[in-house]
């Protein structure tokens, strides 16, 4: 009898472990709580299941690189202190070099600061919005490029660098510091984060590829250039 119990215990343990793991994955992809420590604007989990199609429509308030009317849009939710976002940023720049000029792809940047592991990501996101306020869309992208260029990631950037970066991209440092102090962009960032959660994002980078016919493909993490290129080629055929 004891032998029988022993023989059964291992498969049972395997099943329990499997269920726990499967449960975690399903729970995460279907409706879990995003782990953001106490913040001024806590994101909420929608009651219905999140889907990529519930992502906010692209509009004039978005930060878009490339032709806004491009056939395929890549909406990326990103955290400026996430090392994988830094990698994916380079991947997307390569994509834009290849598909941007021909209006095949437009890149939309939205904020997804993971406060619990990168407390500096939100102030950096606000700084990028200040760059946009003072210098427009081009300044926003220059600012984000520069942050990713100099941050070692994982909260490694000294926040005193934020006005220096603004100066580096030819923005008025005093105006920039005033904008940061005013904290006017907090809601925009909170809205972006909520939008990311609504669309199913749980980590960064979280990307939604929108095909010409509206079909969406979601990509989690810093996937390699070859994957992104292939999915764009596939999306371009979805007409």
């Amino acid at each position: 009898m004891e032998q029988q119990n022993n023989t059964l215990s291992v498969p049972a343990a395997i099943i329990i472990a499997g269920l726990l793991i499967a449960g975690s994955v399903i729970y995460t992809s279907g409706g879990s709580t995003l782990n953001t420590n106490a913040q001024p604007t806590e994101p909420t989990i929608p009651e219905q299941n999140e889907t990529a199609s519930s992502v906010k429509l692209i509009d004039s308030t978005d930060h878009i690189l490339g032709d806004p009317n491009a056939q395929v849009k890549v909406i990326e939710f990103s955290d400026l202190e996430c090392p994988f976002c830094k990698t994916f940023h380079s991947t997307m720049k390569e994509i834009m070099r290849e598909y941007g000029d021909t209006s095949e792809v437009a890149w939309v940047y939205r904020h997804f600061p993971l406060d619990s592991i990168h407390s500096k990501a939100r102030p950096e996101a606000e700084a990028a919005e200040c760059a946009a306020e003072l210098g427009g869309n081009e300044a926003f992208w220059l600012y984000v490029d520069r942050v990713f260029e100099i941050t070692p990631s994982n909260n490694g950037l000294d926040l005193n660098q934020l006005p220096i970066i603004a100066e580096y991209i030819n923005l008025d440092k005093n105006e920039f510091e005033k904008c940061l102090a005013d904290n006017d962009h907090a809601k925009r960032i909170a809205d972006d984060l909520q939008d990311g959660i609504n669309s199913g994002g749980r980590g960064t980078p979280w990307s939604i590829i929108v095909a010409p016919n509206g079909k969406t493909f979601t990509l989690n993490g810093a996937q390699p250039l070859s994957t992104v290129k292939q999915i764009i080629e596939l999306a371009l055929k979805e007409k």
Partner: protein
Amino acid sequence: MYFLVFKEVFKNIKYIFIALVIFFITFSISVTLFNWGFIFDVFQSDSASLLEKLKIFFSLYESINTNFTKTAAVYTLLINILLGINVAMIIYYIRQRRGGLNNKATATGLGGVVAGLFGIGCAACGSFLLSSFLVLFGAGGLIAYLPFSGEEFGFLGVGLLLLSLHLTTKKIKEPLVC
């Protein structure tokens, strides 16, 4: 002892095959774990041939370079290799003894796999399995307090699988007695 036992088990190509299959399956799970929805969408699309869909699927394997820290990539590969070897050796042991499982070694190996799985994913971007598991119990914030942000589970996984391998090797080496 280890070399002799490994030689004994893997001189039969069947066990090399088993180890490779298990490695392939678990490695595939490791690199695609958080993109099953994406894979589903790709395979549902009518705009690509099966070959193109498979090419997209296999391109995700490259994410071991882009979506894992160097440490995570190393322990993920180690866990999958060790798991393949473990399973092959446990099957060899069962067949050789014609008996039940070596419970101690199997349970240790299982612990290694579970611990390793918890460490899989990108520790910095908040989407790895441990954070999902902690969130399940309302303890997501704990991740910030772990010195290696959850990667310690990967190290633990490697340790447990090595221990399981050691226990299985010892069992295989034991003389056949009643």
